[in-house]
């Protein structure tokens, strides 16, 4: 919470809106390609222009992810990443003084294995602001969503093209922080849907909620980001960033001195792209 009683997520979206622009939400996988490099990337994201950070929690079986994020998770797991170490990354990030909101994104089983209650206590204490858990639809809210809200952690839900007007209220009911609109049916990293359709969908969601709506899936370039930014409160970029990590690695799959800057340079381009679009505050 900030002094105004808003969560870090709320105040960050409000601050971006006050600047008349969309927020840049960046996804990177915790522990990719290794703990130290991933920590360096995380700590460099705020200065590069990330407004909100989604930190991917690696899982062996990422059913909703495309190849880039699958590979990122495999690299991280191979390097020994665990949920405990992911929380340690966030703790160090907060100790370094960063106040950029952090949302952990992944699948339920690592959290379930950690223990829901203990996880929420630790996440709250360390400074995690929100959770996106891909395989927990509203039908399973008692599992984690409701306990998270009680613990003061936002639970951010995905809305998709298959989420019709009848279902939207259910999806939005216990959502907090922001709504993540997945711009297509498919796995992460696919091709982007038409920008007009995205704008229409955002408008549709906004008829049901006052929460900011961030749009993701398929955003790869500054031009994509700018096009999405016109109709949304936030632009989510993930696969393109973890692909930057992959392409920076040496032949043995190890980080190089270019790995961190490969990510931050794209983040800076995307941040600039978003700023080319001015929105009414």
């Amino acid at each position, binding site marked *: 919470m900030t002094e105004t009683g808003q969560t870090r997520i709320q105040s960050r979206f409000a601050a971006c809106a006050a600047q008349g622009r969309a927020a840049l939400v960046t996804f990177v996988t915790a522990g990719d390609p290794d703990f130290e490099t991933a920590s360096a990337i995380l700590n460099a994201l705020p200065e590069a222009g990330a407004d909100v950070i989604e930190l991917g929690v690696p899982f*062996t*079986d990422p059913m909703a992810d495309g*190849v880039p994020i699958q590979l990122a998770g495999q690299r991280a797991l191979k390097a020994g990443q665990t949920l405990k170490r992911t929380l340690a990354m966030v703790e160090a990030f907060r100790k370094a003084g960063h106040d950029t909101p952090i949302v952990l994104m992944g699948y339920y089983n690592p959290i379930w294995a950690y223990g829901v209650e203990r996880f929420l206590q630790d996440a709250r204490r360390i400074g995690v602001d929100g959770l996106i858990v891909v395989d927990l639809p509203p039908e399973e809210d008692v599992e984690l969503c409701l306990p998270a809200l009680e613990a003061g952690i936002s639970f951010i839900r995905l809305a998709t093209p298959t989420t019709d007007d009848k279902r939207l209220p259910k999806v939005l009911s216990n959502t907090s922080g922001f709504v993540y609109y997945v711009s297509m049916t498919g796995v992460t990293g696919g091709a982007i849907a038409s920008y007009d359709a995205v704008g229409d969908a955002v408008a549709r969601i906004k008829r049901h909620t006052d929460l900011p709506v961030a749009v993701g899936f398929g955003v790869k370039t500054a031009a994509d980001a700018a096009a999405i930014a016109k109709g949304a409160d936030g632009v989510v970029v993930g696969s393109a960033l973890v692909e930057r990590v992959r392409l920076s690695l040496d032949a043995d799959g190890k980080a190089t001195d270019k790995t961190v800057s490969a990510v931050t340079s794209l983040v800076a381009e995307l941040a600039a792209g978003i700023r080319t679009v001015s929105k009414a505050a």
Partner: protein
Amino acid sequence: MNAPRNPNTYRSGPDENGRFGMFGGRFVAETLMPLILELEQAYDAAKADPAYHAEMAGGLKHYVGRPSPLYLAERLTDHFGGARIYLKREELNHTGSHKVNNVLGQILLARRMGKKRIIAETGAGQHGVATATLCARYGLECIVYMGAVDVARQAPNVFRMQMLGATVVPVESGTKTLKDAMNEALRDWVTNVATTFYCIGTVAGPHPYPAMVRDFQSIIGRETREQMQELEGRLPDSLIACIGGGSNAMGLFHPFLDDPTVEIYGVEAAGHGIPSGLHAASLTGGRPGVLHGNRTYLLMDDDGQIKDAHSISAGLDYPGIGPEHSWLNDVGRVKYLSATDEEALEAFQLISKLEGIIPALESAHALARVAELAPQKPRDHLMVVNLSGRGDKDIPQVAEILAGR
């Protein structure tokens, strides 16, 4: 939390949220949720429609070749010198295994829902073959996801699927076995959700699949009840079936769950042995977690990462199990055992030589425990073993193993 909702029956699950006690549920991405709810509605409507049941019954009789015989294995009985051993001959079904019972039900449902593109995952290839077969029969597009490791070790079934007009997609991600095939099928489904019906091959996945697949497979147990009544004038005393996801076992067990005199045994794949860590025995060697849409016993590490399963049998090589089995394990109604690769291989050879029936390596796991259970029982004990599939597909692999000795 796991007590039966109606204490007088073990057959009332799942509840309206798809739970069997703490197990089951609908742990899927939002993209799939509307479709899963639509599927549930469509299935409920079909269940209430006599025309659907008539179509099923006709297909099972004239296309699948049901009822499958309940056969007294006399030489096997004499060999063990205990229980009278009956084999439920699911391997005689068209396509060579029990899988077709479920696929017929789902394909008829897909037709009712107007879906023209069918996807499936497969391990040993039996479910893939059954799906490819019924897609050919009804003129539907069929895409089968199969781990690249399984494509290599189950080559005859890959060729069969291709002959039937299906596209077989080798899955190179993860461990390249059944669980990865399921991940890839789910990725396809999330992408092509509007046009596609996901034909899941076992009693796992998000609700309503575990209950729906169980219902389709329960024909095995219902026939067994009738046939045993005809042959012996009473219920069997014990049932034994192998378990990967557990559909053949659930199909045999479910109609008997409320008969307290019937002992029920499920046999998981113990691979190189439970202590080795190289096995596929989720109940014996795992703990509850969430994967592929349901909470169930899984092989996983302390961080909740799914561990690789191991089994000589591609059809059992899965780190999870259907959620209803997890519940039946916890409430104690079914006793879950395991059999190693080696024990399954021995049983495979034994029943081939004694009965002239080459069983699938999957079914051989159940037969391996019969070797232990049957001699302990009196001569009037009636034991039913589900011979869930035939072993033709395994012959190249077994030949290679035996030649290496």
